[in-house]
């Protein structure tokens, strides 16, 4: 019996520059970052509006601003989710030990980015719903 370790040569991968977007590490944090930006901007807008515009003011301007933010952010998240979904759908179904082959790296990133986009979408909708249900500063 041989005691030589059993290793396949590592396939050389193309360098970072040549890789599509969806195969880089930062791709997975795009959607959560958008959630964070949206969240912060909504919070700041609401805080400034409540302090400066006062309690009696008509919330139209506030709601308009929130709508604009949301219309900008949601499609991007949806696009990230969609293109990541395409990325991981190309391989075997991921359960239960999803993507534990070295060659599955891209599918793994796609899968994680997809899940994170869904989570961010849900969290963003939560934020927006607050403005739908809570209509006053106090």
């Amino acid at each position, binding site marked *: 019996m*041989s*005691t*030589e*370790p*059993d*290793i*396949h040569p*590592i396939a*050389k*991968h193309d360098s*970072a520059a040549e*890789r599509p977007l969806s*195969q*880089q*590490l930062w791709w*997975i*944090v795009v959607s*959560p*970052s958008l*959630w*964070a930006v949206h*969240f912060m901007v*909504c*919070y700041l807008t*609401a*805080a400034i509006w*409540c*302090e*400066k515009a006062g309690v009696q003011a008509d919330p139209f301007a506030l709601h308009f601003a929130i709508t604009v933010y949301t219309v900008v952010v949601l499609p991007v998240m949806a696009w990230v989710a969609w293109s990541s979904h395409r990325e991981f759908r190309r391989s075997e179904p*991921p*359960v*239960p*030990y*999803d*993507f*534990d082959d*070295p060659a*599955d*790296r891209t*599918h*793994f*990133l796609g*899968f*994680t980015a997809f*899940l*994170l986009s869904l*989570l*961010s979408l*849900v*969290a963003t909708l*939560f*934020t927006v*719903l*607050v*403005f739908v*249900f*809570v209509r*006053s*500063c*106090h």
Partner: protein
Amino acid sequence: MNDARESDLERSQARRLLKAWETPRGWRYWSAVNNSEVGLWYTLTAFAFFLFGGVLALVMRIQLAVPENDWLTHDQYNQIFTMHGSVMMFLFAVPILEAISIMLLPEMLGARDLPFPRLSAYGYWCFLIGGVFVCGSLFFDAAPRGGWFMYPPMTTQYQDGIGVDVWLLGLSFIEIASIAAAVELIVGVLKCRPPGMRLNLIPLYAWYILVVAVMILFAFPPLIAGDVLMELERAMDWPFFDVSRGGDPMLWQHLFWIFGHPEVYIVFLPSIALVAMMVPTFARTPMAGYGWIVLAAVGTGFLSFGLWVHHMFTTGIPGISIGIFSAASEAVAIPTGVQIFCFIATLLIGRVKRAVCLQFVLAGLATFIIGGLTGVMVAIAPFDYQAHDTYFIVGHLHYVLVGGTIFPIVAGFYYYYPFVTGKRLSERLGNLAFWLMLIGFNVAFFPMHLSGLIGMPRRVATYPSGMGLEIPNIISSIGAFVLGLGFVVLLWDVFRPKSKQPLVRRNVWDAGTLEWSGEVPDQPWGIRSIPIIQSRYPLWEQKNLLEGIDRGKFYLPDAEEGRRETLVTSAVDAELVHCLRVPGPSFLPFWAAVFTGGVFIFSTYHWWTAAGVCAVMSFCTIVTWLWTGTAEIPEKPTKSVGMGQSLPLYVSGPSAVGWWAMFITMLGDMTAFMSLVFGYFFYWTVHEEFPPAEWDGAEVYGPGTLWPMVGVALGIMAWCAVILARKSNRSDRSIAFYGAAIIGIVCSLLSALALFYGPYQNGMDPTQHVYTSSTAVLLLWTILHLVLGGVMLAYCIARRIAGRMDRQHDADLANVTLAWHFIALTTVITGATVALFPWVA
């Protein structure tokens, strides 16, 4: 014949490797910087602080055992609960996770050490000195009293004595050490993996630690900014929180909780990371839903930053804001739930083996879930108005913290004890400790929910009889002692002499991850040779891996030049990029920590001369350390690292670990700065008129427009000069390099001067109003950065003169340029805020 030669070679390789990684002996032992030693000291120290905090908790429980007790005075009780909370959060929960990671992470990644061992050592000594200082204050009746969140104005106006300063300065000092560890861990996970360990093969522990380290980087700086503001108010009377001069204590609450809520996850995720290593081992099957767990870790990391205001529901925040934060509080339950389901699924799929470790894991999960449920209750705003500041909260928070951190960490002690010492802890004693702790914990903390609902406020030294509070309190106190007894059993088991006990076999638990590849007893080299990884559980799935490692078949089996070396790989695919020489034992980090500690400690007592002397000494020590220990030009450009591969010994720019460390540090620095900017705008929102034309009958002067703008222009010129210097050095035009660097220094100093001169000649008085003080703090911050930027340039000039930097070997200059991008940005933002914004406002 051939075989004999081969084994001869192996033996001499091993000898050289051992020599390079040898642990220093005798009193020099304390100069060790290797992750195994530093990690061990760190863990033991953090654990000692835990015991100290635990004793304080028992003291509180004695006091509260019976109503109307006067064993402790109110003042003593205030000091004790403040210290209990602060010690547990700052000196135990965060440091222990960093400690464990420093110890384990390199072994999990098959790295010989973390990329900056001396930085870890420095962080450790800072932690020890700062921690002893903060704890010691209790024995001189000088401890802080404001609760672990130190709300002003209580802590700025109604407390004499130095308690608050001890807290602010002592803990800021430790927070800096935490950030240092975070830098180390981020770079470690991204750049120091073994070849082939692509992103989808990283041990889950490393994913969690990556997330947590990034969270530390964004959570701690706001707190440091808050500390700076409060200390400036206390020491120099700059009115940030003083309402009579326009200040607002709410800013502290914001900054504290922007830190404080992520903090809960910062202490929880690493413990879950330990669980993620133990569950597959005891279930004897790979973790199910790896991608889902990564989702959970990253998702929790993000969402946890959207929760801070839920600690401030009762402070009159607008309804909409409360709503936003309630929504995020509910959303974070999703990822938390996902990872717990994955753990349970893995246990169900696998064939579970019984062990004390696993019992602790399960108890931790169950306890945490109960705490999570009461957490959802308090996240619902109306309920919070009821429960706020009662013992209900104390009950909730301990279910989360003890279930989420303490039980998993104890499980980790049982699991990794053989890894560290080569001996096992006793299962019998473990069982005893387990039941004592589990029962004791529930008996102690469950009744607190009831006493809270009856109406017992937290943070009171005593309570009246006849309200039905006697029974839950005496039960709580008894439970606390049973819990304490459990820890005594654990402690005995950890420290009892075990010289007669045999060593365990290699990989006692039959785990699949790389940290168990070590021999028993362990060798200081970390790993005999660094393997190629092709699986998540290499010890289970890669054939003949251990033989290959032991016989030096893989990378870096030798230390021909007698230097400590480890591999640096690319972030996504872990392809080889660089052979990193890591520094060996040295007392420099120790002295640097002593002197830095001196600065903070003497400042507490306002002994400015002593603090100044320490500042100079610590500056000199750190420069010596950088000068002798970093960016060293190797004797040859490349080196053969085994398996027919040759790697560069020197890299600069983004492929160098130092560049990443600088980038990450500057991100943290920027976060602290942005917190100060946030403060400025916060004051703008709460004031009708900001900047005010006059205050209290006196006119209010700002910094003017002209001089800050001159400062910005000079700052930008300095930045351009830096870029030019870098270019000239690259093309080896020395005159141009020196010229540009000197212009850079001059411009940065002039810029600092202009930023100072504006407010000075306008007669701006930082103590007058929050407008002037928040302007002054932004200017002060920027001035310090500009001066530091000048010093960095001077360092580069000296390096080049000394022949330690040249056109190819320009890592120092690359890092300084990177820092300058941030310094320039800081200057521009400050200028725009203090000089231009008042025109718009």
